[in-house]
């Protein structure tokens, strides 16, 4: 067993590392798109309710669980869940806490490479949408498809077809170099520099967008104020009063899903990061600070930049598409129209690259921690083994690039569905098995801010019920489970992707089994009896 324990260097460092993990492309691209499509300003009502009832309570629970595990010498999800549950069988839940971030990393590192590629293209001027404004949208889509290989499987592997291969290699290597340096010297040192740079870049673009005025006098309605209105005006569907959107379960589903995915709860990352805290370090104020930093990037920056900018230049018809459509197809057209657009395009995509890399780093650390303490191998061996696994997965997704099917399949089944599952299990484990009274005392130990006692009721009853209801509603939505199940049965690449997911899960399950036997033999992560209150 490791005799020396890794720890965060500073409190600010751990806050920025957790916030960096949470802030990603979803803050700048997914959130504004979801808000604009689901009632505009009215969307913020279910959004903030979900923040208060689900995201922040679970966030505090994860911070407390991680620090508790860390105080017992455990840093990995299997070991922490074993200690929390009081029985070694709970360690197997931790398979999800390792598998989810690894699988997400496999495609996220490629999206990171897209961002780097776009930043480089703006810096060097190699993105060219031509001189005909009528062709901007088509040429932007063509550029994206050629760059990502979305038109044919194996497209990016053809000689001279795309620079994505080189960029993916650079981002992949950079992640592993930083992770090899360790929690304090690698992750913390990087995040403490990257987060302020991200904020500065975002503010620069924000100021540019808010000072655009009415760039085209022929289209006076397409101005800054109306752009903000398109994002923030509360609107009902098809001319109905705005409050009718609050009666639509889809809006609640979208709002809860957005806040949930944005905060990085259910990824297995926060419990790993907080396990490197000392026993009496504060988790309440730190957790709330990380959450509010994430919200700042999402609401105050993402909500004020993306949709207004797209509306000003493209009008209401141009503000369409999901995360990728808005970010990589629509926004390049916006930068083409924007004065000094090449500079602001570079700043924007470089900021997205930083947002992505602070997130992808956090996806590697849970597995590194597990390999070190589960198999008792050093950091070099852990990094090598994890590098091999993630390289194979990333190469698979990079090769099967047609229509981004492999990426979408892994994103849906792991990056969307399984994090709901893990978050629900975590909440039940924390509030019902570990015990909510004990959990409250654990969270409050060393706290710089008092958690209201109503949190005990919320985390025990409201959060799990809310999660289960949203999960069921989400599953029965034809756009989700049925649609993706159909793809899975019809598309061979989707099937191969599912085989990859199952293969990685089984492999990690075997490793957790081996680790569990080793821990039992050495008495590591000795289980504690569950709280009596939980069984009463």
């Amino acid at each position, binding site marked *: 067993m*490791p005799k*020396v*324990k*890794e*720890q*965060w*260097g*500073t*409190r*600010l460092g751990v*806050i920025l590392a957790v916030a960096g993990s949470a802030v990603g492309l979803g803050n700048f691209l997914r959130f504004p798109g979801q808000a604009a499509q689901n009632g*505009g*300003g*009215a969307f*913020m009502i279910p959004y*903030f309710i979900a923040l208060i009832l689900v995201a922040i309570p679970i966030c505090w629970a994860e911070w407390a669980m991680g620090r508790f595990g860390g105080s017992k010498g455990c840093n990995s999800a299997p070991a922490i869940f074993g200690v929390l549950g009081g029985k070694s069988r709970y360690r197997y839940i931790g398979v999800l806490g390792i598998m989810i971030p690894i699988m997400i990393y496999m495609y996220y590192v490629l999206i990171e490479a897209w961002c780097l590629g776009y930043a480089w293209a703006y810096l060097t001027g190699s993105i060219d949408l031509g001189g005909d404004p009528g062709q901007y949208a088509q040429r932007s889509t063509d550029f994206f498809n050629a760059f990502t290989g979305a038109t044919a499987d194996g497209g990016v592997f053809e000689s001279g077809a795309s620079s994505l291969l080189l960029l993916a290699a650079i981002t992949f290597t950079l992640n592993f170099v930083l992770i*090899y*340096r*360790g*929690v*304090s*010297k690698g992750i913390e040192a990087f995040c403490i520099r990257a987060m302020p740079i991200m904020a500065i870049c975002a503010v620069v673009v924000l100021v540019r967008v808010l000072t655009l005025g009415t760039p085209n006098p022929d289209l006076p309605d397409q101005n800054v*104020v*109306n752009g*903000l*209105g398109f*994002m*923030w*005006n*509360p609107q009902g569907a098809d001319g109905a009063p*705005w409050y009718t959107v609050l009666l639509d379960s889809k809006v609640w589903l979208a709002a809860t899903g957005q806040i949930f995915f944005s905060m990085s709860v259910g990824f297995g990352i926060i419990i790993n990061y907080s396990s490197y805290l*000392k026993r009496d*370090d*504060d988790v309440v*104020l*730190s957790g*709330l*600070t990380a959450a*509010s*930093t994430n*919200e*700042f990037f999402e*609401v*105050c920056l993402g*909500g*004020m930049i993306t949709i207004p900018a797209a509306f000003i230049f493209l009008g209401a018809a141009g503000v369409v598409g999901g995360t990728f459509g808005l970010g990589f197809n629509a926004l390049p057209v916006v930068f083409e129209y924007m004065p000094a657009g090449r500079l602001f395009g570079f700043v924007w995509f470089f900021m997205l690259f930083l947002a992505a890399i602070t997130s992808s780093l956090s996806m590697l650390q849970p597995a590194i921690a597990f390999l*070190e303490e589960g198999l008792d191998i*050093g*950091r*070099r*061996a852990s990094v090598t083994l994890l590098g091999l696994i993630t390289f194979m997965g990333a190469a698979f997704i990079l090769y099967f690039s047609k229509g981004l099917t492999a990426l979408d399949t892994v994103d849906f089944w792991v990056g969307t569905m399984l994090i709901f599952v893990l978050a629900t299990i975590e909440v039940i484990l924390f509030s019902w098995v570990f015990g909510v009274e004990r959990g409250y005392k654990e969270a409050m130990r060393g706290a*710089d*801010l008092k958690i209201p006692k109503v949190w005990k009721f919320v985390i025990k009853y409201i959060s799990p019920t809310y999660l289960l209801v949203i999960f069921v509603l989400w599953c029965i939505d034809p756009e989700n489970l049925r649609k993706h199940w159909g793809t899975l049965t019809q598309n061979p690449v989707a099937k191969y992707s599912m085989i990859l997911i199952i293969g990685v899960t089984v492999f990690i399950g075997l490793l957790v089994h081996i680790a569990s036997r080793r821990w039992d033999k050495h008495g590591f992560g000795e289980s504690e009896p569950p709280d009596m209150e939980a069984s009463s």
Partner: protein
Amino acid sequence: MTTAGWIIMIVSVGSVVGMLVFCFYRVLSAPSSTEQTHAPLDNDTHDRET
């Protein structure tokens, strides 16, 4: 932009900025916020192979 839109935007952005400022004020005004909280020797990389 409608009045309701202005109100929602100002309340949303104001609430988040207010929470952020409050949290960072509390974190940075605490004695152990920015200083090194752990001895440098604690910050081991776990690499026991060297």
